[in-house]
C-alpha cells in the first residue's frame, strides 16, 4: 500500500494576468521504504506539488485533488490542528536554501528541540539527548557546542545537516527533500546525498527527492517521475527510464547529459517551458518536441499505461511489442 | 538595466522618459488611497490659489454683532456664516480658506529650502574626501540630536516669532534628513559601473555630481519631499499654536487654534474646524507620499 497517494492534483495561483496553473493533474504514489525522484526544469511545478501536500503554500493558492491521502488519511478534510500534528512528525520536508531556511534569531538547538516539544512526550533532558543523537547521526562533530550555535555561525553544508536532523527528529515515515543539494558546493553535495540515502535505508522511511539533476537521480532513486510545465509526463523505475525513455521530453533530458552525449556538441532542448500566456492547446511539450505533428499541437495527449511509463504522449517512443497503446 | 540606458546616451534616456512616467502612473493609480490623497491635495491647492474668490468675507473682518455664532446646522446658526464665527465675530469659513494659503506656502518654501540645501550638502558629502564627509555627517548628527520641534522653537525664540522665521527654523531642522538620504544614495550609486565609465569618459566632477549621479538618486528624495511637506505643515501649525509662528490675526490654522483654546468647552466649532483642516491636508499628503513610495520602490528594488 502506498504511504502517500495523490490523484489529479491541481494548484492555481491568482496573478495580475488571470489564474496561473502551476500544477495540473499530477499523480504521485510513494510506498514506505521507497525512494522516488521527481525531476523537471525550474517552473515545472515539482516543488509546488510537494508544498501543497505539506500545506505550506501561501493562502492565495487554490489546491484541488481527487485524492490526497497520507497513510490512508485524507489530508484535504483534516482539520488544520490535526494536520499540523502530522506535519513535522510523520511527514517532514527539507528545503533548497539551508542558509535562509533556519531562523537567524534562534540557536539551531532551539529550533530542533521546538519540533521535539511539539510532537513528542520527551522531557527536557530527553529532548537534549535526542538532539545530540541526531547531530551524531547526521555527522555534525561536537554536537554539544554546535547545538548552541546560531545558523550564521555554521556553513551551508552544516546547516543542511541541521535541517536534516530537524526533519528526522520525530522519526518521519516520509521525508520530502526539495533540491537539498542545489545551493551547496559540489564536494558537499555527494556527502549530503549519501547521508540522505543512508538514513533512508536505516530508518525505512519513504523519500521523495525533488531535483533537476539527472545525475543525482541515477545515483539515488528507485523510481522517477518526470514533470514538465506542471504535468507529470512519465513515471518509471530508474533503470527502465534510463534505458527506455518513452516520452520525448525524458529522452531529450537524458540526451543532454554529458555522460551520454554521442556527438562532440551537447544536444540541447530548443525553446523554453511555456509560461502563463503561451500555453499550447494540445501537448504542452509540442512546441519544443521534434516528433510533434498537427495532432500534438491541437489535442491534449492521453496518459499511456504503466507498461509505457505512464507517458503523457500521443506517440510514445520505444514501445515494447506486447504493450497496448492508448490514443486520445 | 537603468545603468545601461544612462550609459547609452542622452537621446535614449529622453526617449525613455514618457514610458517611465506612464509606468509610474500605472503603479500609483493602483493605490486607491494615494489617488484620493491626490484629489484632496489638488482641491486644497486650488482653494489656496483662489482663496479671495472662494471666501465669502475678508478673513479679518469682524462682525461684532455675531460673535461665537455656531455653524448653520446647529441652533442659532445662519447661512451667513456656514461654519460659524470666532470670538470676535470673524467668519470661520473665510479664515479656513485663507489658512490654506499659509499652509501651502509654508510647505512649499520649507521643502524647497530644505531639499535644495540638503541635496547640495549631501552631494558634496558623497563626493568629498573622507574628512569633509565625516565633518558634514557629524554636524548633521548634532542637529538630529535635538528634537526637531524644540530646536525650531528655540531658533524662532532667537530670530523672533514670525511665520518667515518659523519656516526658516523648520527648513533647518528638516534638512539633515535630505543630507543623509542624498549621501546614502550617492554612495550606493557611485559604486556602480556607469559612474566609473562616466569618469573614464572624462566627465568633470560637477558634471558627475549633477548630471550622472543625481538623477539616479531622486526617487527616495521625492518621497522624502512629500513626507516633509506634511511635517512642515504640522510643525508650522504647532509653532503657531505655541505663539511662535504666524501671529494673530493671521488666519493660519495653528494660530487659529491657539486663539480658540479658551473656548474649548464653550464653542467646539472654533476648535474643531482648523484642526480638521490640518488633519485632512496632512493625511492627504501622507497618503500621496505612501503611494509615491510604493510606485517608486519597485524600480529601486529592480535596479
Amino acid at each position, binding site marked *: 500500500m502506498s504511504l502517500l497517494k495523490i490523484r489529479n492534483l491541481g494548484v492555481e495561483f491568482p496573478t495580475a494576468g488571470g489564474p496561473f496553473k502551476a500544477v495540473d493533474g499530477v499523480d504521485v504514489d510513494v510506498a514506505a521504504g521507497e525512494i522516488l525522484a521527481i525531476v523537471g526544469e525550474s517552473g515545472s511545478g515539482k516543488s509546488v506539488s510537494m508544498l501543497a501536500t505539506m500545506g505550506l503554500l501561501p493562502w492565495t493558492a487554490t489546491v484541488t485533488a481527487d485524492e490526497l491521502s497520507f497513510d490512508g488519511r485524507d489530508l484535504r478534510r483534516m482539520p488544520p490542528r490535526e494536520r499540523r500534528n502530522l506535519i513535522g512528525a510523520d511527514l517532514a520536508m527539507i528545503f533548497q536554501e539551508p542558509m535562509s531556511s533556519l531562523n537567524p*534569531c534562534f540557536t539551531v538547538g532551539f529550533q530542533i528541540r521546538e519540533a521535539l516539544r511539539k*510532537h513528542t512526550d520527551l522531557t527536557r533532558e530527553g529532548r537534549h539527548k535526542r538532539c545530540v543523537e541526531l547531530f551524531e547521526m547526521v555527522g555534525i562533530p561536537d554536537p554539544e557546542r554546535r547545538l548552541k550555535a546560531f545558523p550564521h555561525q555554521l556553513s551551508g553544508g552544516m546547516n543542511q545537516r541541521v535541517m536534516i536532523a530537524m526533519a528526522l527528529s520525530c522519526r518521519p515515515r516520509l521525508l520530502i527533500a526539495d533540491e537539498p543539494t542545489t545551493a551547496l558546493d559540489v564536494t558537499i553535495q555527494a556527502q549530503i546525498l549519501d547521508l540522505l540515502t543512508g538514513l533512508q535505508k536505516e530508518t525505512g522511511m519513504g523519500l521523495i527527492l525533488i531535483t533537476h539533476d539527472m545525475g543525482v537521480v541515477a545515483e539515488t532513486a528507485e523510481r522517477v517521475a518526470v514533470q514538465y510545465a506542471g504535468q507529470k509526463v512519465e513515471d518509471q523505475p530508474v533503470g527502465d527510464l534510463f534505458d527506455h525513455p518513452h516520452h520525448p521530453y525524458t529522452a531529450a533530458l537524458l540526451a543532454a547529459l554529458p555522460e551520454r552525449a554521442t556527438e562532440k556538441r551537447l544536444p540541447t532542448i530548443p525553446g523554453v517551458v511555456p509560461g502563463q500566456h503561451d500555453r499550447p492547446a494540445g501537448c504542452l511539450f509540442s512546441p519544443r518536441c521534434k516528433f510533434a505533428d498537427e495532432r500534438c499541437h491541437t489535442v491534449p495527449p492521453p496518459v499511456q499505461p504503466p507498461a509505457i511509463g505512464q507517458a503523457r504522449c500521443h506517440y510514445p517512443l520505444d514501445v515494447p511489442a506486447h504493450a497496448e497503446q492508448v490514443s486520445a | 538595466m537603468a545603468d545601461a540606458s544612462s550609459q547609452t546616451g542622452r537621446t535614449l534616456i529622453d526617449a525613455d522618459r514618457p514610458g517611465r512616467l506612464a509606468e509610474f502612473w500605472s503603479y500609483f493609480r493602483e493605490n486607491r488611497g494615494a489617488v484620493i490623497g491626490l484629489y484632496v491635495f489638488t482641491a486644497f491647492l486650488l482653494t489656496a490659489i483662489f482663496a479671495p474668490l472662494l471666501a465669502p468675507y475678508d478673513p479679518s473682518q469682524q462682525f461684532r454683532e455675531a460673535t461665537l455664532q455656531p455653524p448653520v446646522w446647529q441652533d442659532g446658526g445662519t447661512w451667513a456664516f456656514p461654519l460659524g464665527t470666532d470670538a470676535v465675530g470673524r467668519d470661520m469659513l473665510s479664515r479656513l480658506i485663507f489658512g490654506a494659503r499659509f499652509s501651502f506656502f509654508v510647505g512649499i518654501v520649507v521643502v524647497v529650502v530644505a531639499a535644495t540645501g540638503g541635496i547640495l550638502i549631501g552631494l558634496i558629502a558623497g563626493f568629498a574626501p573622507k574628512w569633509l564627509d565625516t565633518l558634514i555627517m557629524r554636524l548633521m548628527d548634532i542637529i*538630529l540630536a535635538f528634537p526637531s520641534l524644540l*530646536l525650531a522653537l528655540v531658533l524662532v525664540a532667537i530670530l523672533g516669532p514670525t511665520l518667515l522665521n518659523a519656516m526658516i527654523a523648520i527648513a533647518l531642522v528638516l534638512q539633515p534628513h535630505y543630507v543623509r538620504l542624498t549621501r546614502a544614495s550617492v554612495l550606493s550609486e557611485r559604486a556602480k559601473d556607469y559612474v566609473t565609465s562616466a569618469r573614464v569618459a572624462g566627465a568633470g566632477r560637477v558634471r558627475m555630481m549633477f548630471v550622472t549621479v543625481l538623477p539616479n538618486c531622486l526617487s527616495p528624495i521625492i518621497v522624502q519631499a512629500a513626507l516633509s511637506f506634511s511635517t512642515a505643515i504640522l510643525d508650522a501649525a504647532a509653532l503657531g499654536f505655541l505663539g511662535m509662528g504666524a501671529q494673530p490675526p493671521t488666519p493660519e490654522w495653528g494660530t487659529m487654534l491657539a486663539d480658540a483654546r479658551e473656548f474649548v468647552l464653550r464653542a467646539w466649532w472654533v476648535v474643531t474646524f482648523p484642526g480638521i483642516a490640518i488633519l485632512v491636508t496632512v493625511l492627504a499628503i501622507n497618503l500621496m507620499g505612501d503611494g509615491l513610495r510604493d510606485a517608486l520602490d519597485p524600480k529601486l528594488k529592480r535596479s
Partner: protein
Amino acid sequence: MLRFLLTRLGTFVPTFIGVTIISFAFIRVLPGDPIIVMAGERGMTEERYLELREQFGFDRPLLVQYWEYLTGILQGDLGTSFVTNRPVWDQFFSLFPATLELSLCAIVIAVALGLPAGVIAAVYRGKFFDRALMTTALVGYSMPIFWWALLLIIVFSGNLGWTPVSGRIGLLYFFDTPTGFMLIDSAMSGQDGALRSAISHLILPSFVLATIPLAVIARQTRSAMLEVLSEDYIRTARAKGLSPGRVNGLHALRNALIPVVTVIGLSVGTLLAGAILTETIFSWPGIGKWMVDSIYRRDYPVVQGGLLMIAVIVMIVNLVVDMLYGLINPKIRKR
C-alpha cells in the same frame, strides 16, 4: 560586540561636544547685547548689568568662555535661572521625573497597542482588518497632536467629565514625592483615592503623547512582519507543524523586532518634542512646559541648559538603543 560599542562611543563624544557648542552659541548669537535682550522689557540697573556680564564672562575671550562653560557642564553647572534664581541643573532634575513618567506611560501604550496592531495587520494583509488598522494608523500619524489633545479634552473632560483638564493630581491631595513619579508616590502616600486621581490625570496626556509613536510603531511592525513572513525560515517553522500563533508570534515577530526596536528608540526624540505640546496643553509640570514657559519669559539660561540636557538625553537613549539592537540581533552579538 565590544568593538561595536567602542565605535558607537567614538561618535558619541564628538556629537556631545558639538551639542555643547550649539547650546553655548545660543546666547552669543542673540542679536544685540545678549544681556539687554535677556532683560527684555523688564530693564535692569547698571549694577545688575555688570554683575550679569561678569557671571556670563562676556568680557573674556570666546574660547576661554567656552572652556569654562564646558567644564561647568561636566560638573553639573548649567547656570542660574533669571526668574527663580535657582540652578538650572536642580530645576531640571526636579521636573524631569514628571516628563519621564509621562513619556514612559506613552511609550508603554504605544508599544502595547502598536506592536499587536502591526502583527495582526501583517498576518491578515489585504483583508478588512488590515485596511482598517492601517488607515487608523495613518490618521494617527498625520494628527496635529495639540488639536487632538483639545478634542479629547472636549469629549472626556467637557462632555463626559471623566478626566481632569490639567496637572498631575487633584488639589485635595498633598504628600511628599520622594520618587517624583506621581503613580508611585500617590500609591505610597496611603491617601484614599490619591492613586486613582493620579491615574486619571495621567491617562489623557499619555494617550495623546502616544498617538504618533503608536502609529509609527504599528506601520513599521506591519512592514517588517510582511518582509519576514515571506522568508524561508517561516516556511520551515510551518513545516514543523507549529501553530500559527507560534509561527507569527515567535518566529516572525522575533525577527521583525530588530528594525522595530530601532523605531521605538528613535521615537524618544518624537516623544520629547511631543511633550512640549502635550505638557503645555495639559499644564503638566515637566520639562516641556518648563522650556516653553522659559522661552516666553526670556529666561535664557534655562532655555540653554534645557536644550543641552534634552539633546544629551536623546543621545544617551540612541546609544542604549544601539546596544539593544546589538543584543537582539544575534548576527551582531556573536561575531
